[in-house]
């Protein structure tokens, strides 16, 4: 009997594809964000309003993942940006291969942003690197404050938590302060923005965050060997 040490990531093949995607997007300076949240947390509505609010001339594209239907792509496409639906046919998450096979039909040198809406799920999408610059977790106030504690994985990996549907606060027993405290217990440096895609509350802060993030990425890219 022999024991062979392997010491390799289980998802090493996914990570390899993600690294290729990342370096290609890096070379053209597209900021790529992976939105993760429970079914119905409001990811699509949030992205719809984001697309509406992008400054004129901004180039953005959206990939949206669902197990079935093209509904989200149809909603997102109304805002005049290129959108592709990835239907996973059962898988509860997007993986790098799915993204890779949908991306390159677009002329990417033109894009400032690539938004990826993951399949509604707080657990599985967390494990799969899609080649993004950052993960954003969308939590809605109807889900309960304790979700960061119950699903720590995504709150640990996300750089920003969108606390969404704050227009519902008068109607649901939810304490934003607690939700933020729980999220910061998991990841002290996580950014948090409270929003409502219905009323537009918080979108000023969000659009400013997005712009700052894009500029940081852009400056990083200018200093990277790919640009030299």
């Amino acid at each position: 009997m022999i024991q062979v040490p392997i010491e390799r990531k289980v998802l090493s093949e996914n990570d390899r594809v993600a690294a290729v995607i990342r370096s290609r997007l890096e070379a053209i300076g597209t900021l790529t964000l992976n939105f993760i949240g429970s079914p119905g947390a409001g990811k699509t509505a949030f992205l719809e309003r984001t697309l509406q609010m992008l400054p004129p001339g901004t180039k953005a594209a959206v990939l949206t993942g669902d197990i079935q239907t093209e509904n989200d792509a149809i909603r997102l496409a109304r805002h005049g940006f290129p959108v592709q639906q990835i239907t996973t046919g059962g898988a509860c998450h997007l993986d790098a291969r799915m993204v890779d096979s949908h991306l390159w039909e677009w002329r990417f040198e033109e894009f400032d942003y690539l938004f990826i809406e993951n399949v509604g799920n707080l657990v599985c999408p967390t494990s799969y690197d899609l080649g993004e610059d950052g993960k954003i977790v969308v939590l809605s106030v109807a889900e309960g404050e304790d979700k960061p504690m119950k699903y720590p994985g995504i709150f640990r990996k996300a750089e920003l938590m969108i606390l969404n549907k704050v227009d519902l606060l008068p109607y649901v027993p939810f304490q934003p302060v607690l939700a933020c405290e729980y999220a910061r217990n998991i990841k002290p440096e996580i950014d948090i923005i409270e929003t409502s895609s219905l009323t537009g509350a918080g979108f000023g802060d969000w659009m400013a965050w997005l712009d700052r993030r894009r500029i940081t990425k852009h400056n990083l890219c200018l200093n990277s060997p790919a640009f030299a």
Partner: protein
Amino acid sequence: MHEMGIACSILEAVEKERKLHPGCRPYKVAVRIGQFAGVDGDSLQFCFDAMVNGSAQAPLELQVEPALGDELDIAWLEMDEPEPEERSLASVVSCGPNRRGSQEATR
């Protein structure tokens, strides 16, 4: 659902390793799952067994080892070496301890 995909990736890795060691038969693979990896060990075990049972890879056992952070790694693979006569048939260099990356089991 997700654990099914993880089980699939582990089986692919085992298959890759088996090809690197002609004549050897994998029978146990160990994975380390961190507390934040978002993978449930029991559920993974269930999916893994369901996929292996009745397949060409059976019998193959999964050993889940707890780990820290979001680690999700394949740690090691145990394989039977071929019988001496099989070994000469397969390939002399197949899976001896001198092979790169291999070591004799300590147990």
